[in-house]
């Protein structure tokens, strides 16, 4: 099986309107602000790992 992205943390972030607008995630050791767009490769992988039960997305601060 090909190695997946290594996502060690994920937390929702708020947009300018105060709603959840993205996810701050540590992916392969690097911090990313990931949009909630299913065509985005990072977001698709986050959803996959959440569905597999290996990742939880924390609420926004």
């Amino acid at each position, binding site marked *: 099986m090909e*190695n997946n992205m290594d996502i060690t943390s994920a937390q929702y972030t708020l947009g300018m309107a105060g709603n959840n607008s993205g996810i701050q995630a540590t992916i392969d050791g690097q911090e990313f602000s990931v949009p909630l767009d299913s065509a985005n490769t990072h977001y698709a992988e986050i959803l996959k790992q959440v569905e597999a039960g290996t990742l939880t997305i924390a609420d926004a601060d």
Partner: protein
Amino acid sequence: MTKARQLADLGNAYDDGALSNRNMIINGAMQVAQRGTSFTGLGASVTYTLDRWRFADSANPPARYTQTQSTDAPDGFSNSLKMEVTTADTSVDADELQNVDYFIEAQDLQQLAYGSSSAKDITVSFWVKCSTAQTFALRVQHENGGGGYTKSYTITSPNTWEYKTLTFSGNTTTSLANDNGRGFRLRWSMCAGSNYTGSDSTAWSNGSIFGLHENDWLASTGSTWQITGVQLEVGDTATPYEHRSYGDELAKCQRYYVQKNYTVNTYEPIKFPCWIGATSNMTGEFVHPVPMRTTPSVSNNGVGNFRVNNSEGQDETCNTIVRTGGNKYETFITFGKPTANLTIGKCGYINTEQANDAVLYFTAEL
């Protein structure tokens, strides 16, 4: 090549609809390297490298590589993608796999008419050079459930540029989605265990993933494999490489990745105009140079390289950078600072901390 042969090939290309814009590979001449020109320690994770190219592995093989944008290239080319073995692997396990990848959007492959009786052949041509005479493989993988098709090629003379052409039959059974997701994945073998080798394909989805690949070159550090002039075109005929200008290639690459370097320069202090929407942060709009494939992820080279400025003396080193909105055309980024002393409604700007460049990365890769 005789004139008659050239005319015949031109006729074939015409019939296949491949006379202009025929190269479906972006950065096939390895000119564009926004992320940098050298990538060390490749081997155990997916890593995007030269623009549009990436490295991937399976089962954590021990072999490690450095990839560089080399200036060693065949006549007519300025660059090549060069892989150099830095940790050898003399005993490749059956389940180990490493490859250099290239993805093509599915919507850009509609002309191939896959999933119909008129599905078209494709031909991949490239220049390759390896320090070891051995066989490698190229797999064209249909990313919408259509399996894969593998062909092998052999390096006959070590350390010599060789031109290879491989033709793959059209897939008449499985169509490609007309969307901005993955359509093809081209996989150039670097390392392949016995689970993945054995035979080439004679039809879609038969044969081994990496065909007749051999691992000889992995036996010693310093071994090299280089590639450039990569072209994928419709039909069964390889035509000469379709060169594009650097500007054209860069713009095509920026659909998938944009790197914005704010350089250390005291004479141009205002790098990124912002408005102040809260007492401890300010937000700016970055307009992408071209519409990106999808809404990009945003990263940076360290928040401490950015400085949050206003005109009233509350300047401070940035402590958070968060994407707060946007789409494929633009991204809104909010830069935070520790002290809540900005005046809401005023303007500010982002500068560098003057020690290092401040860099933003926008990623919409396949």
